[in-house]
């Protein structure tokens, strides 16, 4: 059962990572095939496990107290483009080009 071009395109949009070539798509197909083995296991009545060793301890929330901060300078140091205390991004709200207009190999498939 092959993955449709629409789903492949959708994945590229969601992940903001491209398949690059047919090898990439094949890799996904193989990954899905591999994962399908899970359906051989009977999991009736089994609860999904979020946290391992959950009977020993549980996640907690701490009090909303400010315990650290004031490190603007350090946080900005690793950014390539910044202005004053802002990270600079190119214009937003411009969606990636549609499949037909994009420079992705999926065009040719």
């Amino acid at each position, binding site marked *: 059962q092959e993955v449709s071009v629409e789903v492949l395109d959708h994945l590229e949009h969601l992940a903001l990572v491209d398949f690059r070539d047919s090898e990439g798509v094949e890799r996904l197909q193989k*990954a*899905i095939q*591999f994962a399908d083995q899970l359906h051989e296991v009977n999991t009736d009545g089994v609860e999904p496990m979020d946290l391992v*060793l959950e009977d020993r301890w549980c996640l907690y929330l701490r009090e909303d107290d400010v315990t650290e901060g004031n490190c603007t300078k350090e946080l900005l140091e690793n950014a390539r483009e910044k202005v004053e205390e802002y990270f600079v991004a190119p214009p937003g709200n411009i969606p990636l080009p549609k499949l037909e207009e994009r420079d992705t190999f999926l065009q040719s498939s």
Partner: protein
Amino acid sequence: GTLTHGLRSQVSAALKEGRVTPTELCQRCLALIKSTKFLNAYITVAEETALKQAEESEDRYKKGQPLGILDGIPIAVKDNFNTAGIETTCASNMLKGYISPYNATVVQKLLDQGAVLLGKTNLDEFAMGSGSTDGVFGPVRNPWSYSRQYKEKSVPKSHSEDKEFNWVITGGSSGGSAAAVSSFTCFAAIGSDTGGSTRNPAAHCGVVGLKPTYGLISRHGLIPLVNSMDVPGILTRCVDDAAVLLGSLAGHDPKDSTTVQDNFKPFDLPDLTDVSKLSIGIPKEYRAPGLSSEILALWSKAADLFKNAGAKVVEVSLPHTRYSIVCYHVLCTAEVASNMARFDGLEYGHRSDTKESTESMYAATRREGFNDVVRGRILSGNYFLLKQNYEKYFVKAQKVRRLIANDFVEVFRSGVDILLTPTTLSDAAPYLEFIREDNRTRSAQDDILTQAANMAGLPAINVPTALSERGLPVGLQFIGRSFQEQQLLTVAKWFEKQVQFPTIELEEVKRHDNGVFQHQKSASFS
């Protein structure tokens, strides 16, 4: 010479008594790192800061006020842990040039106890892989490739001087850390373990590799792969040293809410003499397809060793073992897809020059920054997380995870104390052979014996056991009950003493260690 000493038993004492100084130790390690550069174990060597730390340690020793057993001890850290002021790359183009603004908790703890941070070790890109061959700085070479033990077993002998000959991999993804410890350039190293990334290279490099119980050691500052499975790993040359490191690193960290709040008490390991009260479980499903007959025989011999010493050795079953790797594959890729979303070029790391839009900049940055392996996992993970697939794959995998974890609970409940299994399917493969299969296939094959412990959150340790017919290290794995590291390490130490794994014989180390090698008895085990 001092470089080959065990930490606790010898080097710490030597430092205290002034027989060697922290700066001498540091300088020797730095010199050895230089002369073993062909191993490619280190990405960054922090020479200046290391020497400074060594000097400060020396002052403390002179005043008779060392901070503890780790004061002045040279340590290496895998390059996916943040280290303030030192580049942290995860062996990826995405983080080349990224200078961490803070120390990971484990790094901070080591520094607070006076350890000397020699540098950052090489790995598979973003810790994805089982060979330490897929990072942007190139593959790590197993020091055993250059050992007398391996060379005398390989044909033709004329290759012994040629460093380009058929060297073998370290395993991964913490290969750099394993190689660093194995080649004596540091006394201990920190790795990470998500599916076996500390134990696998430990087995191939002939060192002790400990994966602690999930929640025992803080992950704060460890660049995450799979939040529900990652743990910092400990690599040392003997089990006692692993206990020392564990003692200094374990404990609740308010900065990592997944660390348990129980008070952790560091412990010494007793010298076990009576194993008659011990029950060792041999999981039959770990006789995996592809397991070499050599390792199968070694495993069997180890079981007999325990039996002959009076322990109860029983065959047990972990029925969901064969689904473990599939389950891991889905959960891992799903969490990776989520964790890698932070790399967009805006706040740190690589940034593409594309300026049309935020989205196109993000996409280009990620295309340029990540290798195929990482991108492949992100895409697979996103597939499994799609609305139409979420229940079918992700939630299903979480259910299977519970079944896998329960298998272990049942076995431990039946009276078994420790499980004994192989760590790897075979000894280290030559690099040229290893790269013929792709990363995902290799990982699926190689993780099979190690990742169930990550699924269940249990502690596990690789103990070097014997040399293979090719003269390469083979290790065996012990898996313990959650938070029972003391018992696990005590048994591991007993086993280590029985097998007397041989010391690696490396030319470079001989030269730097001022003299005669510490010859240990050859493995009485193989």
